[in-house]
């Protein structure tokens, strides 16, 4: 994975353990005119060196670069890749971000066709086709990242590209799991990638008032479940994993991190930006995931929360957890890694799914950083004291999107999967 905490799995996990924050003043562009000037940017990832195929470089944008880098790490780690014989049995499911037009393209467009802010239609008709290059047109497509991943690995089977805002990555993993279960593919490369840290994305969130304006203390701006939380912090990055059938993985001697055991997928149908305080919507996703995995709430040890650090999300999520887990809710370790890496939007669910697998592997629950002022209404065990060594046999990952889409995933330890008759 590629995250604001590191450009691969190991460095990201180490940064989680050491309590680092990935939030800084925005370095990618001059953001000083905006109310929010901080974000969790990916640091020091270059296309040269990441992309071997020089022709592909022309088709890469910052966010498809994140996807290619994270996918490469996943495929290498899995120790298996498509061959001529297996290409049609490999699938790809990606959750991708919504902002595909590059800001410098918009600037050029404005100078060329809208000098005074209004579009000169005659000029656009006459010159528009010469203005854009073919790779530029390709880069702006919502399927650009999907296409680059297919081409790079010669994946020729099933394919899907999803966008349900902040639920995209989680829903992508859930759909990929169903594709493997149904036998539609033997292997699926699945994940999410996004960046909205550009002048237009930042403007959009600032206009909405959804992001924290704690410009003077970036590292504590994201403080999920804290009484003083005041909005999320924009992050960016990508997470990909290789999913395959349990038996096939065992037979080939694969290193198995975890079983992706269940998916719950629901719609809040309440407001575009929030679930209701009662947790309705997320509740159905969590229950659905448990049922799909054949687990009950008793067996879950750790929950990686959506935990965005907005007043409403954290309350709604807390109440959803209470509704599903009852009194057991207080025994559950719940944390939001967005406290350290910000909100990766369409990539969040995929990256946090990987974090659940790592939490199982390393027997460690990540922390919720920056939770210093308790909120009476958010009174669960948020692992605020620091990462917690603990055995994790089953973990949940929540992702809830603008628009009301919810995803909850169940991850099981390899041991628990075996014990349950895998």
């Amino acid at each position: 994975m590629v995250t604001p905490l590191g450009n691969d799995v190991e460095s990201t996990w180490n940064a989680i353990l050491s309590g680092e924050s990935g939030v800084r003043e925005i370095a990618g562009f001059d953001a000083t005119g905006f109310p929010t000037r901080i974000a969790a940017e990916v640091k020091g990832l270059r296309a040269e060196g990441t992309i071997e195929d020089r022709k592909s470089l022309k088709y890469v944008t910052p966010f498809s670069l994140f996807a290619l880098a994270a996918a490469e790490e996943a495929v290498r780690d899995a120790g298996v890749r498509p061959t001529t014989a297996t290409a049609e049995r490999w699938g790809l499911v990606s959750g991708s971000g919504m902002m595909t037009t590059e800001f410098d393209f918009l600037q050029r467009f404005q100078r060329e066709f809208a000098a005074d802010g209004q579009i000169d239609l005659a000029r656009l008709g006459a010159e528009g086709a010469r203005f854009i290059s073919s790779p530029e047109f390709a880069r702006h497509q919502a399927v650009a990242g999907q296409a680059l991943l297919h081409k790079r690995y010669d994946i020729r089977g099933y394919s899907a590209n999803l966008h349900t805002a902040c639920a995209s990555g989680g829903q992508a993993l859930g759909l990929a799991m169903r594709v493997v279960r149904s036998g539609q593919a033997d292997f699926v490369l699945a994940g999410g990638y996004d960046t909205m840290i550009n002048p237009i994305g930042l403007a959009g969130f600032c206009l909405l008032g959804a992001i924290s304006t704690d410009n003077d203390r970036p590292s504590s701006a994201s403080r999920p479940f804290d009484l003083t939380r005041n909005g999320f912090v924009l992050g960016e990055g990508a997470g990909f994993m290789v999913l395959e059938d349990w038996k096939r993985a065992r037979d080939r001697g694969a290193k198995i991190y975890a079983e992706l055991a269940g998916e719950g997928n629901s719609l809040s149908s309440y407001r575009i930006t929030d679930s209701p305080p009662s947790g309705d919507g997320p509740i159905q996703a969590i229950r659905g995931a448990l049922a799909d995995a054949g687990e009950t709430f008793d067996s879950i040890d750790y929950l990686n929360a959506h935990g965005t650090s907005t007043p409403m999300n954290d309350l709604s999520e807390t109440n959803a957890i209470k509704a599903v887990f009852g009194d057991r809710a207080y025994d559950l370790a719940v944390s939001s890694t967005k406290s350290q890496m910000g909100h990766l939007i369409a990539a969040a669910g995929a990256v946090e799914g990987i974090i659940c697998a790592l939490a199982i592997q390393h027997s460690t629950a990540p922390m919720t950083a920056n939770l210093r002022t308790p909120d009476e209404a958010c009174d669960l065990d948020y692992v605020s004291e620091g990462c917690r060594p603990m055995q994790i046999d089953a973990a949940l990952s929540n992702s809830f999107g603008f628009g009301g889409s919810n995803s909850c995933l169940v991850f099981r330890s390899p041991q628990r999967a075996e014990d349950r008759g895998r």
Partner: protein
Amino acid sequence: MQNGVVITGFGCLTASGVDAAATWEAVLSGESGIREAATWDSSGWPWPLAGEIKDYSPRDLVSDRKLLKFITRQDVIGLNAVTQAVTHSGIIEHRDELADPTSFNDRTGVFVGSPATKHRYQHDFLPPLADSAGDSREFGVRAMEDVHPMWLLRTLPNNVLAYVGIQYGFKGANANITAHGVSGSQAIAEACRYLRDGAIDQAIVVGYDSASELEALPYYASVGLLSSRGLRPFDRSRDGTVLGEGAGALVLETQDAAERRGAKIYGGVLGSSVVAEAAGVLSVREGGEGVSRAIRLALEDSEMRPDEIGMISAHANGSRVSDAGEAQAFTEIFGASSIPVTGFKWSLAHTIAASGAIESILALLCLANGRVPGIANLEELSPECRGVSVSASEQKPRSSVGIVVSRAFAGLNSCIVLSSHV
């Protein structure tokens, strides 16, 4: 019926008609909705053609007037098709008589084929760009003053999904597919997956797009994809596609759910497929290998033999390479047979993310009425498309089962198998 997914309602809005009946009549009588673009002044444009919705009036298309402030033109078109389909199905009347409508809502999914983002959304930022003259800090300040606070929410690629949920209270599994020209078909395919998996009992499916936006015309033209003369599928003189607007929506249910409520059943979805060619972002491979594979997999999924297929709704987008590849795939799988082949884009234009959903509805009408409309502007069959039974005049389906083929950027191909008898 195997796998049991039935169609209990449908509706569409296209350049050729305000609903399914009007669109069907237009296609049957050889009428095309393609004109010179009229939503802006396209006079003097080298490729002015578009399939726009005629007499577009958002207040007539969406009954909730407050909602119009929060959505864009393509969302209006999508929501209108959903309203038509839901009304057609009678599921709301059914739900409102239930003792437990909550559980009905929780088990109703929403699956959407979405166009993702649009260039036009960014036009709101042209005035602040012009006024700030390249000064990034100044741009931030002006963007905060000039742009509507709800800008980001208006541009969400999952707005139709969100508002279908909010309007009707549906809270089940959902997906928002942003996969260019296969989005509409894939929305049907993924709804069937969740219905078959038992995660939901009924689903609203919609594909929508306003692909013929201002900037799309010059940019599609820049890569040689647009025709300035008209969309002429399989014709010797074909030279590209024409972009258009539209939406198609269906209500799908498990056969059990539909029979239990005594619903009128219009047909069934027997199977589906999505496959990738791994050819890059914009290219399709010559020879139609991806199309053949998509058809074979969909037939396998529906347990159908090629000789049981009664008609083909081809992608037929007027592209030289794509039409020829499709023709090759059809002759390879079905032999030099007399299975009637038709397409609808010559009349409706290419509505990209909507096309698979709209064309599935029209294919269903072909099967139900025993009539396969001709491609009215076909003058001389291209030598590259020989062996395929396309005609300018009407044909008869050979059975009650048909296939719908859709293709997309990223080398994606999809096939849906439909039946009018269940």
